[in-house]
């Protein structure tokens, strides 16, 4: 039961990853792609948590912490660039 729910989690996360990647490829403007980049980072955090659960190593969660900081900085950088280049 628990195993099946974990596989369901992985399948739903993979679907979410593919949908956000589709928006990253299609997105008409740069702001759409930045939004898709942000969502892809957040989905990757879920993937990292799943990998940590599968391997049983708590040290993997530090990478998720770096990701949570990184998505913020990247989006701020690109948004600043977009605002200045009007």
């Amino acid at each position, binding site marked *: 039961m628990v195993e099946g729910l974990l596989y369901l989690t992985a399948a739903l996360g993979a679907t979410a990853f593919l949908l956000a990647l589709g928006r990253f*490829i299609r997105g008409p403007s740069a702001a759409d792609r930045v939004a898709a980049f942000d969502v892809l980072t957040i989905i990757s955090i879920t993937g*990292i948590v799943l990998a940590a659960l599968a391997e049983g190593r708590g040290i993997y969660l530090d990478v998720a912490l770096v990701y949570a900081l990184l998505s913020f900085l990247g989006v701020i950088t690109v948004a600043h660039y977009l605002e200045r280049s009007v």
Partner: protein
Amino acid sequence: MSALLPAMGLLLSAAMLVAALMAVRGRRSLPISILAAGLVSLLASVQFLLLAAPDVAMTEAAIGSGLTTFLFFFILARVRHD
């Protein structure tokens, strides 16, 4: 749970190749190329984590993805501004 990590690796590999092709094909605008290169770096960092190298994953996420994207946009803003 043993089949989970290689399946994640395959998905990440496909996404990385698509993003790399987006980065080097010349039809799209330059900020989109830089964002796609940043996405390649980000997914490579998850790939490093799956290859049991969390320290490399941390460095790649912070430096390879964050700092490189920041540098590219810094230079791009200078070039556009002049």
